[in-house]
């Protein structure tokens, strides 16, 4: 059928996406809630192995841990409805506040890392695609494979070994000065640079082989304009998907790196809270993380329509 048009309202598109987003978040919440309660007793862990039985019992009673899980879940949903995210079992401070406090610290790492990924990965991939089979192309491919196959904890340790231990130029942990941020940022960006370089390269190569690129050249456009005005806008669709995913993991993507470099961000909070079974904090964290990812996905979907009119919901022009 040659006459199939995607049509409908932007509003219906948006609402259906929002509905899907809400369901995703609810699923994540429920899953986290169940797993946390089935994987160990918070009272035991928080109070220690030597705590007397009646103290543990009192703790359980206070946090409602003796109720059936369905009752606990219902209570949780009810409190969420009134925007109450619970309080930490450790120091009784509001969970949401604990999480929000940490977000800027994490962003101090992830935003510069994202800028590096986008600023280096995309140009490198595009350059490689424009100079296929050249030494630069081979170099980019090699670096890309290196970047995304080596796990970030290995990269992190290597960087520490070189720049902190051997050369002594940069600190290996902590958050005292901007110098402390350099190694974790680098560690985090290397994999993303590799992924983006590879994706941009293949997206660009695909687009450069399309007939409309030949058309653009055939009308006498300079190669520079062909690349900037005709190839890049088309290649940007798949690239945006990856960048969107990276934006979605701005908050959650630093768990490993924060742990290696003792960076007191969201990732550290997550690791500590999970090992302490600090239920409210973990749940709140997961909710924030899931929310940002879903939002980023939604943004990507809207971007698609903006970048590619074929994906835009639009009624037939005939």
């Amino acid at each position, binding site marked *: *059928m040659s*006459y*199939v048009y995607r*049509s*409908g309202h932007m509003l*219906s598109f948006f609402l259906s996406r929002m509905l899907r987003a809400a369901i995703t978040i609810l699923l994540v919440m429920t899953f986290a809630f169940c797993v946390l309660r089935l994987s160990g007793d918070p009272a035991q862990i928080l109070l220690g192995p030597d705590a007397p039985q009646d103290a543990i019992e009192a703790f359980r009673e206070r946090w409602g841990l003796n109720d059936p899980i369905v009752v606990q879940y219902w209570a949780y949903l009810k409190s969420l409805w009134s925007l109450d995210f619970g309080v930490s079992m450790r120091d009784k401070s509001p969970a949401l506040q604990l999480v929000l406090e940490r977000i800027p610290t994490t962003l101090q790492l992830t935003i510069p890392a994202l800028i590096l990924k986008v600023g280096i990965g995309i140009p490198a991939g595009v350059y490689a695609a424009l100079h296929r089979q050249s030494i630069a192309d081979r170099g980019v491919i090699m670096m890309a494979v290196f970047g995304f196959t080596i796990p970030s904890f290995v990269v992190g340790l290597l960087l520490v070994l070189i720049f902190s231990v051997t050369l002594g130029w940069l600190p290996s942990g902590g958050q005292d000065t901007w110098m402390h941020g350099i190694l974790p940022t680098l560690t985090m960006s290397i994999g993303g640079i590799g992924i983006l370089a590879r994706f941009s390269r293949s997206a660009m190569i695909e687009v450069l082989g399309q007939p409309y690129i030949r058309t653009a050249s055939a009308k006498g456009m300079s190669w520079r304009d062909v690349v900037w005005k005709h190839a890049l806008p088309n290649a940007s669709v798949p690239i945006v998907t990856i960048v969107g995913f990276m934006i979605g993991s701005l908050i959650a993507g630093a768990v490993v790196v924060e742990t290696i470099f003792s960076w007191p961000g969201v990732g550290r909070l997550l690791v500590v809270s999970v090992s302490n079974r600090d239920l409210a904090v973990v749940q709140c964290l997961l909710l924030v993380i899931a929310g940002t990812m879903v939002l980023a996905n939604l943004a990507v979907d809207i971007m698609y329509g903006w970048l590619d009119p074929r994906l835009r919901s639009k009624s037939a022009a005939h």
Partner: protein
Amino acid sequence: MTALLEARDLVRVYEISRGLWKKPTLVRAVDRVSLSLSAGETLGVVGESGSGKSTLGRMLLGIDPATEGQVVFDGQPMPAMGTTEWRRLRAQMQLVFQDPLAALDRRLSIAEQIGEPLVIHGLATKSEVKERVAELMSAVGLRSDQAGRYPHELSGGQRQRVIIARALATEPRLLVCDEPVSALDVSIQAQVVNLLRDLQEKHGIAMVFISHDLKVVRNITDRVAVMYLGRIVEEASSDVIFTHPQHPYTRALVSSVPVPGRKLEARIILQGEPPNPARRPAGCAFHPRCPVVLPSCRTSAPKLGAVGTGHIAACHLIAQSDAPLVA
């Protein structure tokens, strides 16, 4: 004469989604098409994109279910797709596609693919399959040393021969060919057309030949049905269709065939585009492009009626001119 294949008032309605909260559009891709085909006969189905000719071809084989109407094969109604009876029947009716590379599995040798239908339908033992494959390959003009080759190692014409050999493996009584030579070069196209014709004459296979290439249709078919926007607008023997077309659309279509040596001025050039099936014009669907449109064409749809022996057409103008005594 009993027909081998008969289609009665076939209708195929597609739903085209228009978003989550909008009612989907219903498109009648095939709209009350009836036709019949005798054993050993070749029926050409011609029309432009959106005419529903490929959908009709798939419906004749039961691959695309009819929304309304019925296909009767050998006196029996077509069983529903996927049932055991349908599968058994499929051995007697085969499809030849336009794009041989897409229809072949690139990981299997061509001998395996030609023998596949025999294995699937359990029609032969292992040694029989081998023998039959060799037979089929020579019948379609493939060399025996090519048996172990893979699709990408063959030329387009050779691949189409593989498809034909595979379709013939089960000794079908009906072959539906959907643009079987459109992707081939002229010199190779002639080879494949000749091959199809020879095989058909030798085995008495009935054939539905769907194509937009009127020259090939002229050469291979006994009868031609012209489709426009899901309906048959004219049907007659191929001699009559190409020498005395009656429907204005058929006339334009026949005239639009570029014939070497014929100048452009001698052709009827239709205005406008082939219409969108989702927006069928009122009255006669062809009226917006028709060079001889009458006022009644805009409001009422003409019915198919006889305009000669074995010649039917759907046009108000023909109906009028056919009744000169009354006028």
